């Protein structure tokens, strides 16, 4: 299922995800083009976050989790047992609902954590940190206090710090799981602007409950319900002329 013929970066084929006996994601297939923003919407418990976590194989960190199907990133099946999830996660970063600055690390150390904690020298990574902080529109606010604890920043700043941290490892894709739901409206608006800006360097897949947010920032929107992908469409069409009746009912608030 793809709305137009752009070069796909990620191709999901017949993906099924389970927690124990619970079938959470049901036979989802879709393609996601390069350097675009895809929003995944749907009611609570419909499998949006589970689908997202399958894409960087965080799903399997749960001992009861099971996944079948295939996910191709640049023609490589990342669900293949021989593929190291650590390598996949370097290509597919993630930003979570709650700001997750690492305690005990300074602002600059947080940004370069993906490489610093693998043994690279901090002094060699300061340029990377500056670039990532500028890309995340945080540089001007923190350049005078780079050695202050990352946790000393406000919630909105910490979330931008997490985006900078994800950008610093130069991933092909960044997954965002409701990244603004724990933030005030002003901080949320800044994150939305930032997501639109980083589209220039990377593909973004964002799970959101906020339909207006999906309409504002994404190129494509996927609507999920009860584990199934109901519709994947260009965002403009999805919100003005959806193909499926269920999508229309959801976006017009007839069920939630």
């Amino acid at each position: 299922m793809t709305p137009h013929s752009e070069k796909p970066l990620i191709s999901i084929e017949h993906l099924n995800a389970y927690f124990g006996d619970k079938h959470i994601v049901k036979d989802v297939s879709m393609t996601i083009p390069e350097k675009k923003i895809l929003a995944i919407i749907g009611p609570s418990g419909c499998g949006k976050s589970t689908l997202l976590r399958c894409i960087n194989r965080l799903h399997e960190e749960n001992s009861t989790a099971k996944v079948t199907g295939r996910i191709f990133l640049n023609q490589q099946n990342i669900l293949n047992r021989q593929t190291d999830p650590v390598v996949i996660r370097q290509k597919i970063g993630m930003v979570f609902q709650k700001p997750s600055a690492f305690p005990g690390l300074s602002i600059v150390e947080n940004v370069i954590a993906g490489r610093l904690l693998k043994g690279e020298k901090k002094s060699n990574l300061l340029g990377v940190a500056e670039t990532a902080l500028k890309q995340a529109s945080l540089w001007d606010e923190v350049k005078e206090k780079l050695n202050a604890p990352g946790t000393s920043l406000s919630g909105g700043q910490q979330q931008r710090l997490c985006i900078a941290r994800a950008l610093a490892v130069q991933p092909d894709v960044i997954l965002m799981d409701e990244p603004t739901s724990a933030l005030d409206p002003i901080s949320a608006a800044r994150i939305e602007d930032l997501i639109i800006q980083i589209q220039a360097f990377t593909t973004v897949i964002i799970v959101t409950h906020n339909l207006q947010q999906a309409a504002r920032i994404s190129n494509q929107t996927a609507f999920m319900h009860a584990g199934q992908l109901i519709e994947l469409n260009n965002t403009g069409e999805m919100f003005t002329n959806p193909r499926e009746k269920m999508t229309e009912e959801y976006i017009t608030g007839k069920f939630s």
Partner: protein
Amino acid sequence: MSSLNSALHSTLRKRRFKNNLMTFVIYLFSLIAIIPLFLVFFHIIKNGSSSLNLDFFTQLPAPVGEPDGGMANSIVGSLILISLASIIAVPLGILAGLYLSEYTEDYFASALRWTVDLLMSIPSIVVGLFVYTSIVVPLKSFSALAGSIALSILMLPIVAKTTEEVLKLTPTHIREAGLALGLSRWRVILFVVLRGKSSAVLTGVVLALGRVAGETAPLLVTAFGNRNWPQSIFQPTPSLPVQIYNYAISPYENWHRQAWAGALTLVTLIFVINILTRLIFSKDGLDKNQS
């Protein structure tokens, strides 16, 4: 309108009174809770400070009947025992705590948790007797090694338990954020989870040190003590608690005064270790990687 105002004022007055009363009760009970601590401090300082002088920290114990003398050998012996015990128990305890907090669903973790809980409740004299039969008897000598092993067995469950409890407080999304960066699980555990809680883990270590620094019973049957300088970790080694015990039960007034001075030194030693570790790690290890 005025009756409404007066009713409001009256409700507010009652609330303020209740609030002030409860605050007073909380302060009062907090004060009562710390009174024993201050009484112990006061008593030790009152009785021990008069015998504290340079000789006490630099001289060996004087023979019976001779005035003065010190506990320098016991201070050094205690430092050796605590250091050796820490070298054994701290890494093992932290690793056990890490395992318990990160692999909670594992059967081995359940067994380990149960063992740690059990170890925590074993009386220290039983640990002493165990080390006596398994180390002292085969080596045919009381020793600092045996003493420190006994102390490390007492330290281990405290360090493991506090580490586990502290690391469990790390939110799941912090661990997942580390994994999502492409860090392997062991790096996330060591450099994100453990590092983020290093201060709290260290507090557990200090708590364990404080607990074993004053242990007497297991040392009586393991390190035993002597009246000279510690020679080797394979020989009987003096320690402050054992020396205090020996002096306290003696019939000599001079030794009683020295026992009080020893108690004051022991409490101060624990206090200084506590303050120093808090000072060193107060920045959560932030300054370690500044280059």
